[in-house]
């Protein structure tokens, strides 16, 4: 029986990846939830906004790399991130001006905006592929691991390794900082409160002297920043591929919905619920049980509840159960 090894194995394959993936989803879901709460529609273009922002970051990263700039053991992309964000802000503000503003002013129904955002998705989609291509892009440099599995084994003498990637570290730290900033902004600043007011009641916000266009502008800026950060972190940790970013939309939306659409806290919780339900339910306990069970009683089979073929299916079942208990999502009411 070897609880320590069991715990390390679990951390290595479930906890750490789950937290990193959860943070990435949470950042994505925050963007979706803000647009939903303040601009009042489900923004299908979010995945591709992430792709666009990340693409800009990558291009600048390459530029820096060719200029010999770097951040030491941290990825150069972090240095390029502000430029990516700036690009995404311009992009979204431009899109808003050309596309969304019209419908907002016409008081079009949200569903129209949803379909419009689908159109925007298609366009972003084409542009991204046009500029950077459809292929995988790896733009990670710097040191790959804070601690690799092999080092860990050597260091501790345990059988199991614990890998902690630099990108995972960065992801988690960045997510915490960003989320804290966002909450401070929404709840404590005048601009943040005016966003919540606008989200609650547009007409009354107007009658209180709040300038709606300013609210919209700030929202898009925040969303652009969130999308670019989420996209870049994801791309660093995994890889950048336009198609995957479109696919990310599904888990992101699922996260936003279980969390309670429109609720930032919910988006974060939702991100983790999704990430962990994907990773844990189909986990094969053979290895862990092998350590925990007494000698000679180690399991033969995989001890897997469901094959990973069903990981999405299962994670959706989990969502359904969560919603069965909390029909309005985890955090409805404390919305933006």
């Amino acid at each position: 029986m070897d609880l320590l090894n069991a715990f390390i194995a679990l951390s290595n394959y479930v906890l750490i990846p789950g937290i990193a993936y959860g943070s990435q989803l949470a950042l994505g879901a925050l963007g979706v939830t803000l647009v939903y709460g303040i601009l009042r529609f489900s923004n299908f273009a979010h995945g591709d906004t992430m792709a666009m922002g990340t693409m800009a970051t990558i291009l600048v990263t390459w530029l820096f790399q060719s200029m010999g700039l770097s951040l030491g053991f941290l990825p150069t992309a972090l240095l390029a991130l502000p430029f990516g964000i700036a690009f995404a802000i311009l992009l979204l503000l431009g899109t808003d001006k050309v596309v969304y503003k019209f419908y907002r002013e016409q008081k079009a129904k949200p569903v129209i905006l949803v379909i419009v955002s689908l159109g925007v998705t298609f366009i972003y989609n084409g542009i991204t592929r046009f500029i950077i291509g459809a292929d995988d892009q790896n733009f990670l440099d710097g040191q790959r691991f804070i601690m690799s599995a092999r080092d860990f084994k050597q260091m501790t003498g345990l059988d199991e390794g614990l890998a902690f990637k630099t990108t995972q570290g960065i992801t988690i730290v960045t997510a915490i900082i960003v989320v804290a900033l966002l909450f401070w902004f929404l709840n404590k600043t005048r601009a943040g409160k005016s966003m919540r007011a606008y989200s609650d009641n547009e007409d009354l916000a107007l009658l209180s002297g709040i300038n709606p266009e300013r609210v919209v502008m700030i929202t898009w800026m925040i969303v652009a920043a969130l999308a670019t950060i989420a996209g870049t972190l994801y791309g660093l940790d995994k890889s950048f591929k336009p198609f995957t970013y479109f696919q990310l939309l599904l888990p992101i939306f699922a996260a936003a919905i279980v969390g309670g659409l429109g609720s930032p806290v919910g988006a974060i919780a939702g991100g983790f619920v999704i990430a962990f339900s994907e990773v844990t339910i189909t986990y094969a306990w053979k290895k862990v049980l092998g350590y925990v069970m007494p000698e000679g009683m180690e399991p033969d089979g995989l001890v897997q509840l469901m094959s990973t073929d069903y990981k999405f299916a299962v994670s959706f079942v989990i969502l359904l159960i969560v919603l069965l208990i909390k029909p309005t999502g985890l955090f409805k009411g404390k919305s933006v």
Partner: protein
Amino acid sequence: MSNDPYGDRGNKDWSVGNAKGQGSIMPKASGKTHPAPGGPFLIGDSMTAGYGAGPDILHDCTIAVDRGEIAVIVGPNGAGKSTGMKAVFGMLDMRKGHVRLDGEDITGLSPQDRVAKGMGFVPQTSNIFTSMTVEENLEMGAFIRRDDFRDTMAQVYDLFPILKEKRLQAAGELSGGQRQQVAVGRALMTQPKVLMLDEPTAGVSPIVMDELFDRIIEVARTGIPILMVEQNARQALEIADKGYVLVQGANAFTGTGKELLADPEVRKSFLGG
């Protein structure tokens, strides 16, 4: 087809979009103001207006109020009282007529700019931020103020003690009458130069209504003109300096509050005998 070309029917599904709180005020670019000296402090002068592309609701209707005055608008349901208020506030397109404030023609201004000019308005419906706490509602009322508004807030709490108790509760969870108090409180927070109230006492209990009227009188006495629509017409007219009876979008009777109260025809047709 409906008057509202883009407003689809229903479909309030919450996962697609969030129809909650969606505005109805069509945005408009703010025009210029120009001086128009003389006349009352605030006047909506021979206004003709309607919704979207629909028919005229107001027909050459005039409403005015001067410093330190309380003007009350009464009339049957659907007469256009609320429409008149909205028109004065620039929330609909005026087809004819002018709005003048303090010697300035503000017909072309957008509602936000009117707020900045010192107009305060409590609409008849959806007049609070339901998801924000009572206190935040009041803060939003003071949004355009850059000075310290804690005093004003204390005054509002004095006026409506229940709000102080429910300070940290979401306003949407309040009872009908409590919401009404929040709404008026929010407008008071603006410290407006002119206050417009659309049925502020609808649904409030007699004791609160009395207090509300008391407070309105006090506010008026500080020199702030008050323009309000009321269905509790007898009480309202008693404190009114000026009364308007609107019928089908036009001025039917105008006079001091007392005159209107004394007019048997008005009493019978509009004040419930």
